[in-house]
């Protein structure tokens, strides 16, 4: 969550800070791949369920009649749980997650117990939190709860508040002497884990929620991330303490981290938690639950850098999936389908923030499409963009059975056709296509499929290849036969093929790859391996043509290589392909590969 009482910066500013944080972390080495040998006990698959925050945060008429965030009450939670159990549970939705405010009164004033732990607000939760969890379990559901990182200022109590089950420890013994603050809103004092009492406080919180019977904890405002960077906002130790504390309770509790986590610390998040929000709140804090521009659409830009970090045991959390009621969501049908498509192919947790008592028929069809849910919950890897982050995008994943999950997106504000070229999947010839949203086999397509997409629209297919594997010819960017102009220069890059790349492509910097051989004239999808800590544009042209500017998605840092496919029209024989930074900053180029069959 990012409630108004905590937040001091608008979302846009926060995101700008995250970008700075990423730049600062540019030297971080690439983490090793997630290597799970056995299925983890928790988050073997992205979790599915419902969260209270979207409705709490909305100004949609009638949702929060007693003031901001007042939707959160036992009655409302159980009402939503009832609807979840009746309509969605059989599709895999099981978590009911209580978000921020369970320990706050309607004026958003916090309550704490005698040990400085959050205390249920008696108006919102008159029977306390355990009773709610018990009721959820009785419906066959799982119970989720929420806490902010650090020691909340209101829990400090002049430093004399005792810590539960920690002889001689008080709140003064767990924070820094200068009472430095932490978390995304500076609403807590930063915990000093060098002090022996500190972990005991986390243990006491964990014990409490375990005793209540909760199965899930969202730890919010975690840094680096949540719009903050620097030592003061480094909560890795908090997260590690939570990991240990949860384990000590003996109760399997899923730990989810929020928000806009620093990708440079992805190894930490993976080590200690089961999921991490990679972006700011999806909610718009407006008259609907969300809006396309603020900030559903950001996920297409922000997800690709994280894709390689997702896997069993820990997933990229794209935030609530609010597609169940078009009028309340504030989205068109096309936008709702695209929203659900991205979440599914990214293998994000699927938790809706909708009013489950008021799902419209289209919303219900989106949330209960078993073929799409299977993309999210199945064994295959998350999809990543195979074309640049232009308004028309293709994302794909190669599945274990040799098929591909392929999503087409049109992020433009007007209709457009989008083509998935089989060569970007690595083969040529025929393939059969199944339309997952519409439950239809579309037949056989040669070399590509093109579909008309509405503004902000999408399609989701399973593509089964029946063609032949493409052969490629690669040329390294650093090849001495290429032409570098402007600032462009060759640089070392351990992750790059050949150990080198061409960088400094900025303000006139240009790489021209010479000797690009095409077997016959035509438009080719050339594969471009590149490195780019942030999303950057480059104009790609062939044989001195004007070219087209494409925005390559961020690879996450300046040591990680990714690739996209870019169309260029080549003549038979030898060609040149140029990467021109123009007036801006372009990605570093590792190599290109040209299809030869």
């Amino acid at each position, binding site marked *: 969550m990012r409630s108004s009482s905590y937040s001091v910066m608008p979302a846009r500013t926060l995101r700008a800070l995250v970008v700075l944080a990423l730049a600062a972390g540019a030297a971080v080495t690439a983490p090793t791949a997630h290597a799970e040998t056995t299925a983890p006990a928790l988050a073997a698959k992205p979790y599915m369920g419902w969260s209270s925050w979207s409705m709490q945060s909305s100004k949609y008429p009638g949702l929060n009649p007693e003031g901001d965030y007042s939707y959160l009450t036992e009655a409302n939670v159980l009402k939503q749980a009832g609807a979840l159990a009746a309509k969605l549970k059989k599709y895999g939705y099981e978590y009911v997650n209580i978000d921020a405010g369970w320990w706050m009164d309607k004026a958003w004033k916090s309550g704490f117990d005698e040990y400085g732990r959050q205390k249920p607000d008696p108006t919102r939760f008159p029977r306390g939190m355990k009773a709610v969890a018990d009721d959820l379990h009785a419906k066959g559901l799982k119970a989720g709860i929420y806490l902010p990182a650090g020691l909340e200022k209101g829990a400090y109590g002049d430093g004399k508040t005792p810590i539960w089950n920690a002889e001689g420890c008080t709140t003064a013994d767990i924070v820094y002497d200068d009472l430095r603050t932490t978390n995304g809103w500076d609403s807590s004092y930063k915990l000093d884990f060098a002090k022996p009492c500190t972990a005991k406080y986390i243990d006491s919180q964990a014990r409490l929620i375990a005793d209540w019977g909760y199965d899930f904890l969202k730890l919010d405002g975690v840094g680096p991330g949540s719009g903050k960077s620097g030592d003061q906002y480094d909560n890795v130790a908090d997260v590690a303490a939570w990991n240990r504390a949860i384990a000590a309770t003996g109760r399997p509790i899923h730990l989810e981290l929020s928000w806009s986590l620093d990708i440079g610390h992805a190894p930490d998040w993976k080590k200690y938690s089961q999921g991490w929000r990679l972006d700011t709140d999806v909610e718009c804090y407006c008259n609907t639950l969300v809006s396309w521009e603020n900030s559903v659409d950001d996920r297409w830009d922000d997800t690709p850098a994280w894709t390689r970090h997702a896997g069993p045991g820990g997933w990229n959390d794209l935030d609530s999936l609010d597609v169940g009621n078009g009028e309340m969501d504030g989205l068109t049908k*096309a936008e709702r*389908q695209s929203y659900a498509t991205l979440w599914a192919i990214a293998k994000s947790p699927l938790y809706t923030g909708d009013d489950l008592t008021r799902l419209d028929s289209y919303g219900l069809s989106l949330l209960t499409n078993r073929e799409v849910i299977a993309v999210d919950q199945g064994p295959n890897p998350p999809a990543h963009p195979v074309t640049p982050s232009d308004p028309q995008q293709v994302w794909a994943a190669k599945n274990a059975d040799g098929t591909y999950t392929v999503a087409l997106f049109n992020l433009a504000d007007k*209709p*457009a056709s989008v083509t998935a070229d089989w060569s970007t999947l690595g083969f040529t010839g025929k393939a059969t296509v199944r339309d997952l949203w519409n439950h239809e086999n579309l037949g056989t397509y040669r070399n590509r499929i093109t579909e008309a*997409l509405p503004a902000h629209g999408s399609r989701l297919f399973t593509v089964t290849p029946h063609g032949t594997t493409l052969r490629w010819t690669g040329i390294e960017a650093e090849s001495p036969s290429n032409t570098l102009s402007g600032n462009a220069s060759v640089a070392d890059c351990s992750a790059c093929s050949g150990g080198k790349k061409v960088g400094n492509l900025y303000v006139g910097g240009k790489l021209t790859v010479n000797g690009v051989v095409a077997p016959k004239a035509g438009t080719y999808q050339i594969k471009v391996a590149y490195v780019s800590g942030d999303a950057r544009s480059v104009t790609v042209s062939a044989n001195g043509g004007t070219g087209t500017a494409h925005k390559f998605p961020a690879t996450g840092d300046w040591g990680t290589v990714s690739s996209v496919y870019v169309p260029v029209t080549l003549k038979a024989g030898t060609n040149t392909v140029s990467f021109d930074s123009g007036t801006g900053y372009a990605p570093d180029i590792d190599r290109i590969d040209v299809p030869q069959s």
Partner: protein
Amino acid sequence: MTPEPSRRDLLALAATTGVLTGLPTYTAGAAPDRPDSLPYQGSSDTTLWWQAPADEHSMIEQGLPVGNGRLGALASNDPGRELLLVTDATMWTGGRNDTLDADGQFPYGRADFGSFTLLARLTVDLPDHDLSAVNGYRRTLDLARGVVTTSYVRSGVTYRREIFASHPDDVIVLHFTQSGGGRYTGSVTLEGTHGEGETAVSFGAAFPNGLRYGAAVKAYGSGGRVAVRGTRIDFSGCRDLTVLVSGGTNYAPDAQAGYRAPALDPEKLARAKVRDAAAHSADVLLRTHVADHHALFGQLDLSLGPSTAEQRSLDTWERLKARARDGVPDPELEAQYLQFGRYVMIAGSRDSLPLGLQGLWLDGNDPDWMGDYHTDINIQMNYWMADRAGLARSFDALTDYCLAQLPSWTDLTRRLFDDPRNRYRNSTGKNAGWTVAISTNPYGGGGWWWHPAGNAWLCNSLWEHYEFTGSRTHLEKIYPLLKGACEFWEARLLTTTLPGTAREVLIADSDWSPEHGPLDAKGITYAQELVWALFGNYCVAAAELKRDSGFAATVAGLRKRLHLPQVSPKTGWLEEWMSPDNLGETTHRHLSPLVGLFPGDRIRPDSSPSDLVAGATALLTARGMESFGWANAWRSLCWARLKNAENAYRLVVNNLRPSSDGSNGTAFNLFDIYEVDKGRGIFQIDANFGTPAAMIEMLLYSRPGHIELLPALPGAWAASGSVTGVGARGGFVVDLRWRDGIPIEARIRSVGGRTTTVAFGGTSRTVTLRPGASVTLKDFAR
């Protein structure tokens, strides 16, 4: 201030100017010819295609235009929701607008001057055909048949729809069919866009200016049910469905009648039109339409050489993007762009008002600059293509418009032009004839500022149509316009002595070289050139018609004394303001000082003094190659006149750049977009005609008595090509084939012309023909 003229005054004015007023624009038509079979099947050469529809927020860039010359629409072709934004060329707010502002200029608002505005919205909802649920979506615009088609597959059924605007039946037809056992279930909604309230089958209303308008819809299908339900027409289980729309206003091109046909009830007429059309099957309506449309469209065939198979495989939008991205010529696409301009002209300029800034097509009620008639380049450019491109008939709307406005323009000039607050009034103290404002509406009114030389430019355009067609009827029609414009200039010209000489010359009074530089400059090149041409044209007209010999002699005398613009010794450019200094922006969009190079031909590379040609060339060079739509088109025309083929071609290619996020260039639907502010592009149709005009001017230059073949043929088109039906001034039509940049064969047909030279390279032949006769010339050499 002079009081309002009475109706009798206007009648008297009409009598003196000799204007014949026409029938009301919206009227019952004669029974058309109905062919027994489809007269033309269409061809991929003249069929544009796309793989995405428009939605209601992208209609101006993605909606496909249809029109019968008066009644038009942009169609979304969305499978689940077909949207037509329906327009009538006469759907205008505002009025005569004859009270000047405090600065002596015209008010320019939507209530006083008025605005072109939407007539209706038609939607056909097919709830099960959501775009996200259909496959293989494709839409086409068959330029030669004048039909928009849509096809897609939904659950194994192929659905098709055809949309066209029929001139013979005066309705827009939507025909929905399918193969594979599908059914149509949904609803049709017709709505006004001006708060008329909802209605199922027709509506009618009136604007505060008294203009009555109305529209009607009728739907019928087979195999299911079609029924009016509330404010919609619901249909269910139909194997096919036909929807007919008509509409119009009670506008009349008649100043004496206050531009109204008072007895006309547009709603009632619209209901009758859809009822009458519904007596015929959709196939019969289609055949009737195609016969009518193709008779016009087929007047010009064009090949600029072959494109590659790769280029042909791309849809029109991808092809535009590839053209810009790869920098490789796509001659078939370039020819299609020209033919699209011809299609739009047929659809937008026939038996009604002429094409304004957006032609017949709108996506909202309030178009930029009112969608009006701009007389300082835009309306002229709209009609440069017509005669050149085998669409002489389409020109008539401009002639009819000027004639219908003339009584009011004359009245406004007499009453208001010498208003002491008007900075452009005649300092001679005399006032005669007529002129216009920069903007004009269809009610005889002007908007924005006075535009003294606008009368001359309009007359010169009308005169060129006479040069192309040799039509004496046309000459008789336009003679009063020419004469009145000459009278205006006779009263306005000032005598001055050129500095450093004793020579007395005549110059134009204070004026603004269009939208550029000082507001009050005397002797601006723009006015000098236009008036010089006007006077010359008038003298020929008077001689041809054997009228007013005394006045013609006076005009000839004035013409001899007119100052003719010079080349600045300082800049080396042809002067714009009768000053050696550059008083404006070097790369300004307007080419007003080059109006003598194009469309005029006082500056002739083949016969003018070389320093004059060099000055014009230097000015054109300074103006640059990177402007937008119409400004690029005009530059291209000028470079074609200067026989610089590659510059002329590059400007055409610049206009073909795909527009994204409002950038200058060609939209998805091929409409030209002008980026008026960063990120905000608006549709301006002039480049859709000006660019094709430039392309033709590259293939053929003509002036009376002289035709030049392939004067500026770019390398991209040189290998091989052909064109038929190109109009040539002097009264000829030319068919031409070429190879390796050299004409193989040129057929010259007289449509009234007698003698002309036909030149290519260094050779020139003289051809003499009787009207209707033709000759084929061969054996050209470089």
